[in-house]
């Protein structure tokens, strides 16, 4: 999880309905990594999107996929966006653009 959006992401995921959907999406990603489907779509390259829709919500969590040492597949939740229309608006586009320039480095914790 990107700490710059930590509060908003955790607040969103604390909702029971959202949490259930999140679990479902994550389980599918982990079962078959690099498998894209309705609620987990590839935007471009390693930038992906978890779709929380419909049931009264229309939220996207934009993510970056990382493969570590060719063995550990990670999906970093980076940006959250509340969509109002089908089209990608300026605010959401700017979040995606900023994600393109971000790199995440994942390392084993020392002493483990």
């Amino acid at each position: 999880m990107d700490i710059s959006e930590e509060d908003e992401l955790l607040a969103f995921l604390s909702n029971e309905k959202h949490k259930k959907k999140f679990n479902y999406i994550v389980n599918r990603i982990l079962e078959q990594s690099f498998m894209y489907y309705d609620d987990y779509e590839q935007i471009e390259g390693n930038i992906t999107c978890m779709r929380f829709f419909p049931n009264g919500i229309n939220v996207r969590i934009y993510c970056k996929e990382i493969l570590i040492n060719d063995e550990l597949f990670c999906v970093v939740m980076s940006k959250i966006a509340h969509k109002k229309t089908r089209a990608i608006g300026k605010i959401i586009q700017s979040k995606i653009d900023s994600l393109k320039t971000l790199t995440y480095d994942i390392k084993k914790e020392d002493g483990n």
Partner: protein
Amino acid sequence: MEIKDKFKALFNSKSEEELIIEDADILKANYLSEIERIFRFEGINKKDLANKIDVSPSYLTQVFRGDKPLNFITIAKIKRALNLDIKVKVNVISEVKVIPYKVTSMQQTDAVSYNDTTKEFQSLKLVHSDFKVATNLSNNEYNLIAS
């Protein structure tokens, strides 16, 4: 409280009933992921598949999104419609290994100002698969069974 603790607090305090529901969702996801992989490979979309098994496209979409339950009658219909060979493999879970990892982020264009965003992330769990579903097209010359 650190981010990993907040995340754990959200997702690790599950009741037995919640864990069972989550397991059921995983089982369902195993079938759906395999089926989805095959029909995408075959160039079939969900609308075509819905027509083949005589259900509405919106129902099928909701099933694949996890919003509607999946029953074995629907799986059997899909199996017959797509001429699938579905295999199920069950193993006893031997070990659950927890690997602690850290995530650091860095803006490529402005590395210095983002260096201080290094924070500890959640521990990532490597869980041995306990229930695998492999789908193959019957009489297909390609080996499509996932390992």
